[in-house]
């Protein structure tokens, strides 16, 4: 995950210290087993490490992308999945339901109305899961920076593991982005989902600031 800087308003240090202390369960009913390599099976550290490496290797090799076209960028996902670029050969495939997906592509801008559905779908995805953000809009609002209905900074509302810039990124850039994600997963560095659970309260606060008619459960299992 990215490093935190005290100058940022969303820095972790500004959070209440009672939040997600090490070893304790976060507020939401999370599942310990989803934490990578920690608290799983009592085993020797070296063995744990070896198991984690193997797990990560498997995970990186089967990415299942949730079928949710949240913005413009979704139009390049069809060419990616069809015969010309054929993402299947890279170990990437689509998944119709959040329950079967582990990669969420935020394909551009998010209106507040979609953000609510995105949060719900994201939380419904089983751990571990990764978020790929496409285009300018997810980084700093893109061309809709002054629109009343779109959010600007995606990582305030959900963790992002990889940013692919471009408007919109070509299928080739998407393949490169997936490759980047796979490397990160193999190294055990793509831990955005972990971060989300640890800091759920902070994310919730941010989410509730823009979603005025909040009616989601504490955690959408």
């Amino acid at each position: 995950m990215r490093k935190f800087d005290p100058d940022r308003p969303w820095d972790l240090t500004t959070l209440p210290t009672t939040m997600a202390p090490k070893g304790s369960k976060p507020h939401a009913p999370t599942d310990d087993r989803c934490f990578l390599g920690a608290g799983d099976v009592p085993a020797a550290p070296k063995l744990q490490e070896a198991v984690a490496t193997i797990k990560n290797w498997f995970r990186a090799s089967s990415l299942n992308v949730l079928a949710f076209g949240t913005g413009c960028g979704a139009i390049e996902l069809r060419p990616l999945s069809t015969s010309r670029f054929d993402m299947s050969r890279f170990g990437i495939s689509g998944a119709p339901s959040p329950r079967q997906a582990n990669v969420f592509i935020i394909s551009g801008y998010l209106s507040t109305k979609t953000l609510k559905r995105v949060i719900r779908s994201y939380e419904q995805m089983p751990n571990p899961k990764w978020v790929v953000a496409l285009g300018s809009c997810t980084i700093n609002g893109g061309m809709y920076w002054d629109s009343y209905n779109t959010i600007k900074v995606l990582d305030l509302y959900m963790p992002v593991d990889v940013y692919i810039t471009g408007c919109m990124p070509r299928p080739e850039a998407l393949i490169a982005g997936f490759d980047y994600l796979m490397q990160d997963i193999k190294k055990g560095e793509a831990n955005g989902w972990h971060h989300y659970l640890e800091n759920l309260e902070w994310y919730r606060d941010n989410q509730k600031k823009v979603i005025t008619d909040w009616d989601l459960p504490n955690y959408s299992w």
Partner: protein
Amino acid sequence: MSLKNVIAPFSAWARAVQKPFTVPEADTFRPGADRYRGWHINDTKQCIGCGTCGDICQNGAIDMMPVDDATKGDSGLRPLVDYGRCCWCALCVDVCPSGSLGMSNNYIWIDRDPDVFRYIPGVDKKEWDDDSKGWRKEEGFNLVDPDRVPMPMMMPEEDRVKTWAEVVLGYSEKEARAEAARCVECGLCVAACPVHMHIPEYIAAIRDGQYDVAVNQIYDNNALPEMCGKVCTRHCEDVCSIGVNGDPLAIRWLKRFATEQFSDLSAVLSHDQPQIGVGKSVAVIGGGPGGLTTAFYLAIRGFKVTVFEALPQVGGATFFGIPKYRFPLPSLEKQVKLMTDWGVEIKTNHKVEADEFKQMQQDYDAIYVGTGLLKPSSLRAEGEDLPGVMPAIEMLIDHHLGKTVEVGEKVVVVGGGNVAIDAARISRRLGADVTIAYRRRMEDMPADHEEIEDSESEGVHLITQNIPLRVEQLPEGKLDFIWGPAEMVSEGGGRPRPKLVEGVENHLAVDKVIVAIGQKPDLRWLPTDVAEKITNSWGGITCDENGMTAAAGVFAGGDLVNDTADAVSAMADGLTAVDGIINYLGVGSKTEEG
């Protein structure tokens, strides 16, 4: 449902044995198209930091960041692109006046940190900096207008030499607004203008038809704008960002248009300066543009200002140095009237001598000296004392004071500055056949290039690379102007110097030789003790950054001090002296400095 339709889809099996569409894995990252709109690149040497890219960007993706010192013609800013905003429309590339911005055909940039996607192209080194392919600006699609609205001129050209009326007719309202609309408001002109006029603001006001706003902006730091609007050397237009790949904006003509809209300036102008100078008095010696500027802006602040002018008319070089077909007398009188209306006292025909100066040092709180350069440089060739050889400056003064100037039928003017051109064009109007002789090449001439073109259109001949050797007397009062051709040689990397080609002598039979190769200061009127204190090696005056000389309370400016020798620089010195005098007298307060 027929059997045929059941079987039909199976025809697709024919494709099973053909070459697949799928891109081979090795070719996955094929390069973008030749004009692909990928990541930004910027030639920072070519970039002038005008910020037009940032202005057109509807995403607010471009910030101008200081990377270098601001110089004239380059703000020192360079665009920083935020890829959290960019939409790759490439309007920034298409609008770029200098053509420095481009786009590479590289398209892959992935990172887990969202903060890395901000960079200054060309400054922050990226792997795509040297890509030759990608989107570039093209001639056929221009988002700024490179073509100036042509200035209406007196036609036909032959008529110009028959009259003293203005050759340049001035824009109509429609033309002026169209020309003003070309401005991109980058502000580079403000840096180049010696007085730093609020150029983008008054151009915008002209564009919107708010001429009173424009005139107020213009008078904010220019006391003689109508003069500037007609004859300024316009350093602003040299650095105009539109001028890099097109005609620069006609800033001078727009200023002229705005000031000409009002015959009574005091009706539209207003000021709200605190009256800090009440009870203080300032003497201004020399009613040239610098002195008048000092006088005007001090008078606004309540100072009692008196201008002492040796000639019957104030204006200095702008009065006697500029022909009336460029700057008619009523224009000057209109501006001087505003000054007297607003409290400046003007004493003409009053030449200050050493004793009076001593008395002034007692009577006035501060003195501004702006007497300019009046002593002509000599030809430095044999025969320079012959009766038909005359300095241009004397001819101009005589002409403007209404004395008859005899130029005869054929005249040669030696020199390449604006004075030379003015002398030549006046001689032309007096009926002479005029030749200008200049040492260097045409492009080296310090005179305004429009002026050179105009003089040529009026039938003035121009001989360049011409070194005067001597002047000899011919019978019937004629003179033989003997010159040798020069070749341009570059020595030591400086600008090329003319070198005489030995052994060649050309002859030109003329009635008069008018020498316009510069003037020198003449400060003999100063008391010797003061003169010793303040004059420098070349006879001019040295000032500190407040415009004050080594003598306390004596300020100076204009051609005596700076080496640009144009009116607008003198006015800049005048403004420096205004601040300097206020500081010196200790009446300014900190709050109004901002």
